[in-house]
């Protein structure tokens, strides 16, 4: 189903097409990861992404409007992030943990952790957009297409959020 729309992939998945759901995963995994990364310790996010998609696969029949998949999966991810902090055993995770050591150069490790923490302290509207751009590597138009936001909104969120981020980190313009 290469080139299929999100709605087509959702409908096929609802009929049990596992390959179609695999394509949904490939398209939306970064979005879900960004939502989690904007709220949780980074080492917790990857496993939660898998859990969220597995849960979504089992609940997909409850999604009545296939085209609304992006908002639906995003809501699941945000709720899961909230649940993370409600669960005492999970919430003790070290929030300042470094990014995976084997893939991050020592000279940037501290900066990345600080910067990510700074992003998580930004207003909601900026956090996910900045993570999608700076962490997941998506462009503004790609973010707009993925999230359903208008390109103008994404552009405003990106520039204002980035300005605030620099200010929080004390990075001069």
């Amino acid at each position, binding site marked *: 189903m290469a080139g299929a729309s999100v709605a087509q992939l959702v409908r096929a998945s609802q009929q*049990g097409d*596992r390959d179609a*759901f*695999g394509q949904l*995963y*490939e398209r939306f*995994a*970064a979005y879900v*990861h*960004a939502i989690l*990364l904007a709220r949780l310790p*980074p080492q917790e*996010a*990857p496993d939660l*992404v*898998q859990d969220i*998609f*597995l849960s979504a*696969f089992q609940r997909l029949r409850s999604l009545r409007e296939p085209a609304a998949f992006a908002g639906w999966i995003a809501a699941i991810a945000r709720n899961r992030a909230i649940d993370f902090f409600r669960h005492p055993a999970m919430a003790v995770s070290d929030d300042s943990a470094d*990014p*995976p050591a084997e*893939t*991050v150069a020592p000279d*940037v490790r501290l*900066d*990345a952790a600080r*910067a*990510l923490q700074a992003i998580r302290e930004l207003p909601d509207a900026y956090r996910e957009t900045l993570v999608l*751009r*700076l*962490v*997941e*590597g998506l*462009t*503004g*138009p790609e973010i707009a297409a993925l999230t359903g936001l208008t390109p103008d909104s994404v*552009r405003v969120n*990106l*520039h204002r959020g*980035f*300005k605030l981020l*620099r200010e929080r*980190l004390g*990075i*001069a*313009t």
Partner: protein
Amino acid sequence: MTTSTRDDDSNSYLWDRSGEVDPAVADFERAFGPLAYRPAERPLALPAPPVLPPRRWPIITALAAGLVLVTAASLFYWRLQWPAGQAWRMAVATESGARTDTLAVGQSLKLDANSTASVDIARLGTMSVQPGAEVTLRTTGSRRHQLRLDRGAVHIRVWAPPQRIFVATPAGNIIDLGCTFTLAVDDSGTARLTVQTGWVQMENVHGESLVPAGASSVMTADRSPLVPLYDDASPEFQRAVRAFETRVADANVSAELAAIRRDARGRDMLTLLMLAVRERDTVRASLLEHAATLSPPPRTLSGNPAAFDSNAIWEWRGSLPLPPPKAWWRNWADVFPGR
């Protein structure tokens, strides 16, 4: 991190990575790059689809239903079978006690005023013989069983396809159509029939009459069986109908006719039409005219109902809301004793 950057909306590198590389953005990209989620490196491990157990219930249900059908058909076939000439079983209760016995072909059962008998009609049903009755078993067999009732009363319950039981009387024959009925023959040889379920046919050399459940009729040897009369019809209506039917030729029946027209109900349409089909001219016209006011003829019949011929009357009768005479299976409850 590099500190040089642009913070206005013209930063196209921040927007879509076009134009001149913004060093500050590039610094963040390098720092965050290892955190990016790459689905290809983390394939989603969907749980294997559940292996559903084979759906056996439909097969079991079908097999059970088939077994039930085959068993029921076998039982029904067995129920109809009876070796030709084989005697019936019966239980006779007399003043001196009860005894079981058989009623052989050619044998007569004569009961005194204090005795009764319960006779198994092969496997098709039962016959309750009332005190003072005289019954003779004439033939038995899978296709037909024949009796003769010379006097007294019997109550017969049969659940089987039509025309398995024939009862001869001095007035004519009674033929079951899958039913429960009571038949009495008096000393003059008159047969009186009351039907509880199904239909019963009365016939003699003069004609025939089909009697439905809830109705009665009378048969004498000198005339056609009388028309069926529902037992819940008014006594005046019943008296008028019987007097009308049994009048001597050319007698003035205007009073009876008037009573029939006055007291007939919608349920008495069968009686009215069966009377009318046996009459002619003005009497038939009068009966039909009144019948049309109780239950109009079907649309397939046109013209003045008072002028209908016999064929039209039979068609009208066929349109009445009565159970089909040969739908014997509808009286399935007759298979159980106590009816």
